[in-house]
């Protein structure tokens, strides 16, 4: 986890991706630097000595105004294709959680993580890790999408659950990208506006 998980592209000029390490991020294009210091986010502009304090919500809003993750995922011909390396694990079972003999609920057990890639386009998401469960699914067939800590979880058809821990990309970027593409797929198919992505995708007219 790092600041570039939050600021995956430059809030100032929109350059994508931001560079960074730990609690610092910097833009290779315009030269701004954002750093967490004593719990505060400080932004330094190139050529100015004094950093000033910024609000994380404002940084995220600026990133969204620049197009969020869509710009980098869109090719010159207008098609969308984006991929990233990830450690991929699949749910192997669900176990009952009991306390003092009373059932409180269920928790999933995830299998071992395998290195692989996730690729998305406007229609589908492809998960490739050399495992028999790997495959490709239409956005319209996904059950839910959510970020869990630093991972992305996708609910797939046939009650499958895949969890992706990105090796060199931002889970927030992927959460936003997946949700946008799914929302566009639903609207494109005339199935309404997505109002909720978890625990299941819900649409409204």
């Amino acid at each position, binding site marked *: 986890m790092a600041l570039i998980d939050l600021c995956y592209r430059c809030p100032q000029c929109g350059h994508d991706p931001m560079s960074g390490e*730990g609690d610092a991020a910097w833009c290779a294009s315009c030269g701004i630097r954002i750093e967490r210091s*004593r719990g*505060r986010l400080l932004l330094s502009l190139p050529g100015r000595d004094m950093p000033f304090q910024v609000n994380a919500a404002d940084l995220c809003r600026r990133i969204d105004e620049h197009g969020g993750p869509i710009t980098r995922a869109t090719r010159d011909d207008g098609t969308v294709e984006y991929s990233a390396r990830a450690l991929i694990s699949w749910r192997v079972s669900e176990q009952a959680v009991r306390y003092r003999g009373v059932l*409180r*609920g269920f928790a999933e057990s995830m299998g071992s993580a395998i290195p692989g890639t996730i690729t998305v386009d406007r229609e589908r998401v492809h998960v490739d890790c050399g495992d028999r469960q790997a495959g490709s699914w239409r956005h319209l067939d996904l*059950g839910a999408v959510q970020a869990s800590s630093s991972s992305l979880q996708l609910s797939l058809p046939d009650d499958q659950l895949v969890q992706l821990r990105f090796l060199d990309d931002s889970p927030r970027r992927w959460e936003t990208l997946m949700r946008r593409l799914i929302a566009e797929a639903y609207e494109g198919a005339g199935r309404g506006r997505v109002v909720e992505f978890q625990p299941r995708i819900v649409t409204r007219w």
Partner: protein
Amino acid sequence: MVGGWYTVFRVTLGWAGRVLARCRVAGRSHIPREGPFILVANHESILDPLLVQSNCRRTVHFFTKSTQFGANALFRWFLPRVAAIPARRYRVDPQSVRTALRALAHGDGVGIYLEGERSWEGALRPFRRGSIRLILKAGVPVVPCCVSGTYNAWPRWTRSSWRAPVWVRYGEPLLFGIHDTRAERESALEPTARRLRQALLALAVEPPDRPRSTGA
């Protein structure tokens, strides 16, 4: 429904929160002394569960993402003892709702993070509709609780924490009434969410060293 471990952890973590996290608490008198209630809170940091639950004198069964129960052996042992209810976030989970309703029937409190996850940017996110439906179905008093400052202390996107001042403020209980039918719950969904959002925002403390969002 919970044993002595709950009290041990509540007292220990409450002390740690006040001393180590410089946590200031207000409005505890709004928590009902007896009878069922639902505690709703915002969620900015991994510290929130410790601070919200440990500063509440009543037993509160909090919905907790189910992946935490499988994270490691310590969590598997610890979480049921602090009355955590495993909730599968990738599907509708009727068992977690049953467990919550059973806790309310027993006269305990149930805790819900209405956003369903930690905020990336420290701002209140949209509320989960299923959580609002549970509130409307249960019909018990709802105590809003706003945690401020934990985003500065330990935001979601970093591994490092900072000893920033933290506020936990409990608000006056809200009553929404029992909505027995699905149609009643659906029609009350939006106004209830709006009222809860207003209640949480009204309790928020803007940390002195954190700039207000420009909203621009």
